[in-house]
């Protein structure tokens, strides 16, 4: 059948117009020929000149830098050029800004998988942290209410204090400070997500000397229908009041907001996917009597585990989906353990253990979805590894 491939491409030829254009290059001096830049590139060059100095032109390397650092943190190795190429493929520059209360928020770029979208945000005009610290220290301690819920648990040898925010005042005095974004509202047109079912997280960089800060907003919605986040979309991102502090009780407002940013994204080429075939992972029941959802190993021993069979796992550059065989198990078990993507050169990338969600696909198919911390080029992906306690299960990728 190799001949059929060769015969097929043997029938493809450059157009006569292109042939004439190329042959006519010699009719001018070489110096003049240099001006024969393809039209598309010429337009691009003009656009670069027009945009020079704007956020759109200046922010190009932002998401590459962010994910490169993340890759090194996750794997202990520098990022490979293949990985950067994949990040480029999944990312679009945006450069839309809105100012409110002296703080300007810019959507630097957007990176998309089928079911996850990352917004790289830039906040400019933030007040100095010394000023925010003074305002934080001026807060008065609230009075504990009569129904205080403060409790102390030991989980895997670590003391964990639970309770309402007001109960945690003392513990939070020296906790790390950060910006607190509140719940962002994200909507798409066409409406391809269930607005009531999603996960999101925000990671932020330290504030620079010029008062700017970068933050990465990860949003994992539940898709409805056949559409994906890689289709052409109009996006509205509404960011609420920005706070600074340690918790909902120890924080001060920075800027009132909201910042409403709207922009359009083009369709991007759908991500490739690999599969593992069937297998099984371990599931454990939640321990709900304390409201913790975890087992206290120091007092209770290991939780009972039960094998959960899956018929396939579909791996994409931004995460993977486990197709469970028995939907009933997913109503009473949490999946336990960690999932790693192993590359040809032995690099390991661990899926966010908190990123999984159960959801239903058409046909009552029950699945769990996990997200990689960094988009990953699957060209060098070798296997998916599942680790639970001392046990390792390897699933080759096809």
């Amino acid at each position, binding site marked *: *059948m*190799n001949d*059929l*491939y*060769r*015969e*097929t*491409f*043997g*029938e*493809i*030829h*450059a*157009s006569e117009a*292109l*042939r004439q*254009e*190329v*042959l006519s*290059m*010699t009719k001018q001096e*070489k110096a003049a*020929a*240099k001006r*024969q*830049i*393809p*039209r*598309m*590139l010429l*337009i*691009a060059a003009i*656009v670069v000149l027009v945009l020079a100095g704007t956020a759109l032109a200046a922010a*190009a390397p932002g998401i590459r830098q962010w994910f490169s650092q993340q890759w090194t943190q996750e794997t202990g190795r520098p990022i490979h*050029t*293949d990985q950067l190429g994949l990040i*480029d*493929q999944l990312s*679009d*520059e945006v450069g839309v800004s809105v100012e409110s209360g002296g703080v300007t928020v810019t959507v630097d770029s957007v990176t998309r998988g089928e079911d996850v979208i990352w917004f790289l945000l830039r906040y400019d005009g933030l007040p100095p942290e010394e000023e925010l610290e003074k305002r934080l220290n001026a807060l008065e301690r609230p009075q504990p209410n009569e129904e205080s819920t403060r409790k102390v648990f030991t989980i895997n040898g670590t003391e964990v204090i639970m309770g309402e925010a007001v109960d945690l005042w003392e513990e939070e005095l020296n906790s790390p400070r950060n910006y607190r974004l509140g719940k962002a509202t994200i909507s798409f047109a066409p409406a391809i997500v269930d607005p009531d079912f999603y996960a999101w997280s925000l990671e932020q960089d330290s504030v620079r000397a010029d008062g700017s800060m970068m933050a990465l907003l990860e949003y994992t919605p539940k898709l409805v229908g056949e559409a994906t986040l890689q289709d052409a979309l109009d996006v509205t991102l509404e960011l609420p009041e920005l706070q600074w502090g340690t918790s909902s009780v120890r924080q001060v407002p920075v800027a009132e907001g909201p910042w409403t940013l709207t922009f359009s994204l*083009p*369709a*991007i*080429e759908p991500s*490739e996917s*690999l599969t593992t075939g069937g297998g099984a992972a371990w599931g454990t029941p939640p321990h709900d009597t304390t409201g913790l959802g975890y087992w206290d190993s120091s007092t209770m021993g290991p939780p009972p585990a039960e094998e959960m069979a899956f018929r396939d796992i579909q791996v994409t550059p931004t995460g993977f989906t486990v197709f469970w065989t028995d939907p009933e198990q997913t109503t009473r078990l949490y999946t336990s353990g960690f999932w790693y993507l192993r590359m*040809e050169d032995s690099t390991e990338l661990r899926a966010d253990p908190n990123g999984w969600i159960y959801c239903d696909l058409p046909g009552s198919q029950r699945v769990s979805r996990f997200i990689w911390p960094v988009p990953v*080029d699957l*060209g*060098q992906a070798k296997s998916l590894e599942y680790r639970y306690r001392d046990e390792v299960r390897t699933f080759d990728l*096809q």
Partner: protein
Amino acid sequence: MTESTFTAAAERHLDMVYRVALNWFRNGADAEDAAQMAMLKLWQADADFADEEHLRRWLVRVTLNVCRDMSRSPWRRRTVPLEELPEPAFSDEERRAVYREVMALPGKYRVPLYLYYYEGYSVAEIGELLRLNASTVQTRLARARGRLKLGLTEG
């Protein structure tokens, strides 16, 4: 490079340059821009080629570099739905079906496939041209073969 050597090179290799670019982009308009830019670089180059194979490899490398640069440009609209892309004319339906199947593969598989099965480059040579490890090229070829109903075999 003289006018006559450039013209001869263009006559012999323009189709190859265009096909490499077409496999990269899937899109004839982008492939033509890339092919034109690659041939312009040849005309401007002050390079002496030891033989025909040296020239052919130089052109493949330059074409891939041009495609890579164009792909990174944020002003290029990167995706046109497969069903909306104009197709080359084929002499029969079987070849049209093969073309559609190949073009439905991710880009990273299409180019190694073309260089291997049409241009006859080895895995190591493709790795050098694409700046990839030979094992990565091998993996991509194997996965591309696995996805095609075409039944391609090694070598």
